[in-house]
């Protein structure tokens, strides 16, 4: 039989429910608002007449965006860099973190500090551009992979997690003759799933959202990422709408009905949907992973 709740308990539960419901709505409403704006009449969105319910239901924003040339190719490029970039970054970052947990590593403290120092100091955009140019990465798919192989912050998280692994586990492998790579791949790495999921999520989101790399280093459309394509489209729509509306004056007619705000929101929706679909599957690792990485021992 269940415990009978007192009036105070019920009141407390109701109040909690109301408060959390309000907070939940506050968190969820922006996504809901985003979605209803993308399926509402663009001109109503522009003047702020869409509040709680969609009006003038239409899919023309999605049709406009999905009609973009080169959309399929750029989606493939984005997917490729996200998968390959995340996998390679995870492996390289975690292997580097493993090195720094080895006390026998020569100059360990010095190299660790040198690597961490790069978090605080940067040469700036131009030297980085010149460095990448010197490495032959301009207009190459590898610009999306190579510069991002090591994330120092991620490396620190993984290293902290690895240090919590008992040394005895590795010692027995050493006695059996296992080398560093074997111990790393067969003993250490499997125990780092939570932190790797966390770091992997950070990295994957970073790859998915990045358009700056394309903007700076790529001039060939076949290497455009989805984000960059959509960013360029949004700028063109914004500029075209202002120009076309002005040029329509002499003919006494209205201008383009593809309004920039609607496009902006549609682009946002298209870009965040994949991340929102992936996130629930790794959420269980996320909090645990962050805490493991943050707390030593």
């Amino acid at each position, binding site marked *: 039989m269940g415990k009978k709740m007192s009036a105070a308990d019920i009141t407390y539960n109701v109040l909690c429910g109301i408060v959390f419901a309000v907070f939940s709505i506050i968190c969820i409403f922006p996504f809901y608002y985003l979605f209803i704006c993308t399926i509402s009449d663009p001109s109503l969105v522009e003047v702020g007449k869409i509040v709680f319910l969609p009006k003038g239901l239409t899919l023309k924003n999605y049709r406009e965006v999905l009609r973009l040339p080169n959309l399929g190719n750029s989606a493939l490029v984005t997917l490729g860099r996200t998968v390959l970039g995340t996998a390679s970054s995870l492996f390289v970052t975690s292997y580097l973190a493993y090195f720094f947990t080895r006390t026998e590593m020569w100059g360990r403290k010095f190299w660790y500090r040198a690597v961490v120092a790069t978090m605080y100091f940067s040469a700036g955009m131009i030297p980085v551009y010149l460095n990448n140019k010197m490495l032959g990465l301009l207009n190459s798919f590898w610009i999306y992979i190579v510069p991002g192989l090591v994330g120092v912050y991620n490396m620190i998280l993984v290293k902290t997690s690895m240090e919590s692994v008992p040394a005895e586990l590795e010692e027995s492998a050493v006695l059996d003759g296992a080398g560093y790579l074997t111990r790393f791949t067969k003993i250490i790495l499997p125990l780092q799933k939570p932190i790797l999921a966390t770091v992997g999520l950070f990295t994957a989101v970073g790859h998915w959202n990045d358009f700056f790399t394309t903007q700076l280093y790529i*001039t060939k459309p076949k290497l455009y990422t989805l984000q*960059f394509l959509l960013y360029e489209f949004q*700028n063109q729509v914004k500029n075209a709408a202002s120009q076309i509306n002005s040029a*329509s004056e002499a003919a006494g007619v209205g201008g383009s009905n593809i309004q920039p705000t609607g496009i902006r929101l549609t682009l946002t929706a298209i870009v965040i949907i994949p991340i929102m679909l992936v996130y629930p599957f790794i959420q269980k690792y996320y909090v645990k992973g962050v805490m493991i990485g943050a707390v030593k021992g």
Partner: protein
Amino acid sequence: MRKKAVSKLLALGLSAAMMVSLAACGGKNESGGESSGSAAQEESGQETDSQEEAGQTGENVQADSGEAEIAPYPDEQTWDHLDRVTLYPFDTNTTSGLVTGYKADVLAKRGLEMEVWAYSDEKTNAILASGDLPDIMFVKYDNLKTMIEGGLVLNLEEYLNQMPHIAENEQIQTALNYTRTYRSADTGEVYGIPIQIGVEEEAEDTGRNAVKVNWKAYYAAGCPEIKSVDDLIPAMKKMLEVMPESEEDGTKCWGTILNAGSDDQYWGNMQLWYKWFGYEPDSLPYLVETDMIKGEHHSILEENRDSLYYKGLKWYNECLREGVMDPDSINNERQVQKAKVETSLACMIPSGTCAGWAGYRPIYIPGMSLYQENWAKPYGADTYVVISANTENVEAALRAVDMMADFDAYFEIWCGPEGDLWEYGEDGLVYPTEFGIKSALGEETTVFESTGEERVLWLDNFIIKRNFTDSYIGPDGPRHARGLAEWPEVKEISNQQDEIVQWRETFGYDTFVEQLKADNAYVLRSPLDNVVSFCPDPDDAMKLTVDAVKDTVVEASWKMVYAKNDEEFEGLWDQMIKDCIDLGAEDIVSWRLDELSKAKETRDSLEAE
């Protein structure tokens, strides 16, 4: 102990390496002259050699063809292959990638195919620093100066005759004379060709330089008489009585609507207020007003309550207190204001930054003089088309630059291929097709039937800026190049629209300019035309003060618009003036007035030549 010594040695070694690399950067900068970054200097050494080679090649070509001989028009020649050129555009309007579709045909006619790089400010900095220039790019003068000094751009002096549209155009030649003297990094030669060269032509109305009214509401309200700016608010009230909500989408109507998204250089909502009175706001960041009609500059600090700025704020405040201004104006982004004014037609008298076009008609307020909105400049805008000194195919790059001075190419890009929006008649003249007329009137989309492509903005900043093409001639002469909306056949139909007929019947004139001329209120050429083009930008230190003054003025202006009574308004105005003076605005004003005076003398001396 030993470990500590090793650590110290390593740290010393690292420090020494950093110092050496710093010294190396500084050394290269000193030897290479002014430049931005050591790598640019490394590149510039190479570029200078390439440039000299290119120059020698150019001289050889020149010697072969004869110095005075101008090359034939590229679009009149036959090309057996296409040369690819890369272009870094002026802004994001030009779609990146290899140009395809009908625009590719326009280029192919000139023996070209074009690959456009995607534009961004960051990329501009990166490619300028690295020297990885495309064949052709648009640069502002500050960057051009650095590029000339770094040897990154081709000296076009020897190649001008290979660009026939440039060599034969007197307006461009005049602009190039100015470029040689003032925009050549003291070399006296042409490295970049300015864009937007032209002389403003008279139009049927003054563009944004007039008070406009929501015509449907104004007409329905009985065309209330407007004898002065003071009559605008009562007129708005009458208009709002007959149209409280927009007929387009039910948006609540307001007498006027402002926006808070245009305040990057000055309080943007002064823009149209100034233009209504024949002023230009281009010196407002320096608290200077420019009366284009009388040809005078005034300091806002000195004029104080006699300034147009004060009167504008007072008017906006009155609009709000009378209940005719959108109270949400301070929260409006520019796009929101635009949507309310232009899409919803929910504004009675557009002000701020949004002039209102379709659905709005200009009205003349007696006693006020207006002038033609000026986009073309005799010496061009301060942005230049340059060719990289490392270009592999100089001739192709020259043809591409020449195309930007060919208004036939502009026509072909804007009006599309023959047979879609226009066609040749039996008499060999150019006529609009039925589809073209309907497209211009908005009854059809501007999708070219033959190719399925949409007409979008593309490479809008040509070297030459004017309205008419050269070779595409209609019955009334050269056709308007930027689309069919101004073609007589389209105008004949659009002029029969109700609001235009009603406007004519109400005011008794065919066009707004005709009405202005009847009252001697129209000015095509201002005594201050193009003076601002010769003004320098402030230095970095002064820029900080200008930005601080701008922030003060913008914040105070918004507060004055929303002031609840006259006392509050006057207090805010006095405080704003005091704050500006405390920030050092008087020095800014004095500097700007001085520069404007010098700029006027420079312009006058150029015109005298």
